[in-house]
């Protein structure tokens, strides 16, 4: 049998060009960062096992996984609501991977490794809400969509998982998006079009915010 070695790479590797996009001569109103090399596990409760899974998750992560559209930060992972009785575990460096989580939730949940199936995009900047208002039908007003708020929604008919992360040190809001890898490039171009008039500072990072 032939031997294969699989080199994982970002679904945005072709589309992402670092530097400034759109308006020049102004301070970029949008900071667009792709986060690479993360671990992402989808956890879905088995039928009738929601309460037991919640208990096991609390024991495992040291805090309850969100059961409403929210994202919570544990000491070494982000738990993001993705639907009723299901959540995503976002972490780095193999802290929460299939081989450790699957035994912990055995019989209670179905797990699916999404690490290379999604792209993670972080959006911030002075014009972030103005730009996202073109793409999302959600109310992102600071009083409504607070730090830790999450949503399963759509951008341009593409399903996304959205959540508001911790504010930057300058107090500005950060919005994180998970999108299916095969739709990432399309969403990326849509985002560039929506943000061009404000100027976009494009980067990529290996650090989870």
């Amino acid at each position, binding site marked *: 049998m032939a031997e294969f070695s699989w080199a994982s790479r970002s679904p945005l590797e072709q589309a992402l060009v670092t530097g400034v996009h759109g308006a020049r001569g102004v301070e970029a109103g949008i900071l667009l960062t792709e986060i690479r090399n993360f671990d992402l596990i989808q956890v*879905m*409760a*088995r*039928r*009738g*096992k*929601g*309460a037991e*899974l919640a208990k096991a998750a609390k024991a495992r992560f040291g805090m309850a996984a969100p059961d409403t*559209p929210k994202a919570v930060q544990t000491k070494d992972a982000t738990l993001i609501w*993705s*639907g*009723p*009785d299901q959540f995503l575990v976002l972490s780095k460096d193999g802290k929460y991977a299939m081989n450790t989580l699957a035994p912990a939730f055995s019989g209670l949940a179905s797990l699916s490794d999404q690490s290379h199936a999604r792209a993670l995009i972080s959006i911030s900047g002075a014009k972030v809400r103005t730009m996202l208002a073109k793409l999302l*039908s959600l109310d992102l007003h600071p009083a409504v969509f607070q730090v830790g708020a999450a*949503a*399963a*929604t*759509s951008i341009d*008919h593409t*399903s996304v998982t959205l959540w508001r992360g911790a504010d930057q040190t300058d107090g500005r809001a950060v919005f994180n998006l998970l999108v299916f890898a095969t739709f990432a490039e399309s969403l990326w171009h849509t985002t560039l079009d929506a943000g061009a008039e404000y100027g976009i500072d494009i980067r990529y990072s290996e650090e989870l915010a």
Partner: protein
Amino acid sequence: MRIVCPFCGERELGEFTYLGDAKPQRPAADASEDAVYDYVYLRDNIAGVMSEHWYHGGGCRSWLKITRNTLTHEISTVEPAAGAGAAKVGA
């Protein structure tokens, strides 16, 4: 038109897909051919309050059971359909 998903909150119509009448119940395995024909093919065309299945595919991917007035589009109830969310079934 907006639908208040019991899991996600108020969302625009574009996130949802319409399936149709939520009333028909699958007949028993030994049901008559007429009963099966009715279940598969025959639908009421209701002008007024109707029970419907909708799918929140652009959001939490849950099936919902919605009571809607087909004349006014007024939605009076929204609830998870059987099987939406593990905890809702057999819990």
